[in-house]
């Protein structure tokens, strides 16, 4: 027996421990670090001194919701990136590049600045969800499941431009004179100044959407061999597509409505994790949720870096990290693109 006949270790055993440890560490750091560093241990043991009450308030009302949202939003983007890449069999597919996030932002902007949220509290996430679902449906209509990477990216450019332009238009026409100043938030995203109210907006949709996405493992595995074989293996692809559109729409739409459009997370996370799950599109799904959470917690910590003096937008950090990777992927795919 030569070495190549030993069973392949397709999943690295330490992947989950590393992901969990990293996420927990970044979550704790995210509670500690900021304009007012919080001594968590002292606070917990009652040694924080006279400022204990203020620090507890900052922790509970500012840091904790922000960290939880980073987990939800990052997890959603990582998860949806992995699922969309599996469905479209394309490593460039992700909510940001395909325009689902910006279409979701457009829906949220319309709901927020035209008074819909005043009459219906759920209007904000529902607007985001409607936008995201329409965005993904438009992509699938323009490019289809079997599209070449270039077609898919061009369809994404089209949806992104349209949604971006309409968002700018909506903010200009909005009754509030300050609305147009918020374009940066919607285009680049941020988790600053979020509260538990935002957590409760996102939570139900994440609880609804994540299980659907996590259970898509087997059909995504089957799609490794193309649509015909997946279908002959007993997987109904129209049903699969419907579940992906609904679940990504629900989760991305709800997240974007509180965080704005944060790009590249869904591109970076599956790409970085893929070698550690043997390039297996099904096994990639669950780790991508945790990877996305860790990445966004880390990126959000960078926005608060004291070196910069002023807080950066989260989308700027993820774009600075993700765009070079996007270029790298394009370079390697260029033979397949045309």
């Amino acid at each position, binding site marked *: 027996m030569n070495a190549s006949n030993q069973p392949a270790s397709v999943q690295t055993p330490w992947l989950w421990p590393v992901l969990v440890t990293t996420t927990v560490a970044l979550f704790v750091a995210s509670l500690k670090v900021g304009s007012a560093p919080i001594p968590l241990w002292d606070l917990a043991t009652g040694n924080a001194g006279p400022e204990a009450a203020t620090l507890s308030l900052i922790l509970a009302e500012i840091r904790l919701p922000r960290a939880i949202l980073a987990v939800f939003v990052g997890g959603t983007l990582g998860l949806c990136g992995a699922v969309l890449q599996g469905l479209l069999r394309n490593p460039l597919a992700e909510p940001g590049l395909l325009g689902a996030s910006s279409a979701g932002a457009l829906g949220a902007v319309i709901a927020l600045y035209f008074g819909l949220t005043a009459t219906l509290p759920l209007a904000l996430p529902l607007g985001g969800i409607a936008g995201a679902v329409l965005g993904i449906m438009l992509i699938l209509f323009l490019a289809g499941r079997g599209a070449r990477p270039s077609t898919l990216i061009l369809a994404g450019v089209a949806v992104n431009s349209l949604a971006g332009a309409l968002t700018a238009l909506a903010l200009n026409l909005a009754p509030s004179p300050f609305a147009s100043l918020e374009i940066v938030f919607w285009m680049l995203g941020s988790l600053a100044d979020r509260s538990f109210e935002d957590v409760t907006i996102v939570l139900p949709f994440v609880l609804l959407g994540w299980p659907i996405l996590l259970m898509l*493992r087997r059909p995504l595995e089957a799609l490794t061999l193309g649509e015909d074989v997946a279908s002959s293996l007993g*997987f109904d692809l129209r049903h699969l597509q419907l579940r992906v559109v609904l679940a990504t729409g629900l989760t991305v739409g709800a997240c974007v409505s509180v965080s704005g459009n944060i790009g590249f997370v869904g591109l970076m996370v599956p790409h970085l994790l893929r070698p550690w799950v043997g*390039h297996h599109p099904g096994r990639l799904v669950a780790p991508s949720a945790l990877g996305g959470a860790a990445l966004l917690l880390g990126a959000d910590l960078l926005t608060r870096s004291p070196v910069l003096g002023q807080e950066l937008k989260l989308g700027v950090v993820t774009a600075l990290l993700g765009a070079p990777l996007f270029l790298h992927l394009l370079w390697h795919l260029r033979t397949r693109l045309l």
Partner: protein
Amino acid sequence: MTLEATSINLTLGGRTILTDASVRVDTGRVIGLLGPNGAGKSTLLRSLAGLEPSAESKRTLDGVAAPTRANREWACKVAYLPQTGDLSWPVTVREVVALGRLPHHTGPWGSQSAQDRAIVDLAMQQADVNSLANRPADALSGGERARVMLARALATEPDYLLADEPVAGLDPGHQLQVMELLRARAGAGMGVLVVLHDLTLACRYCDEVMLLYAGRVVAQGRPVEVLNPDNMAKVFGVRVLAADTPDGPVRIPMARLRENTP
């Protein structure tokens, strides 16, 4: 037991692909499907596999009509092996073959049992891809990949295998090995429908052949009878050398009888 599709008429983009074509596979038999390029062989095979939506309603398995949507129980019984070995991600050969076990798992997770692994090992061994087990399947040669895909279809342990040109691109040794393997599986009770271009292989390894021409089944029956020089001249426009050898009949295309197909 019988898998069949009857009276299929299929038009794609205004072009008639199949006209009143019927195909029937019994368990334990190897049926060869032959005909010129564009005659509709792949489409007929795909129709029987349930991959041509307009032909779906015409499929039956032991008289039971096929479901109109992809179905797990049917996927356990009928395996489809396409001509192109599409592969989207660089997973290992063993992983590709293991995908053949997917229809046998219920529930969203479906981890592999020891029995699944034994079946995957056997399929890899039979298709002679054991030594490639841990190689990324995208880094193989065309012929190696074709055998990996065959192992994947066999790993399903289907009652029927619908294989589109499984020996295309294989070296002579592996062509014989694959045909022997299909015969052996038929001997063990599997029904095989196989698209072939090699007339000699069809003569030697099929129980029955169907000759397709311009979307119609023009001849059907025992290979040596159907693949006679007359039919070969009509359908392929070639003169064949037909002979019997101690190893079995041979049919070798010797010369073209017309400049281009009319």
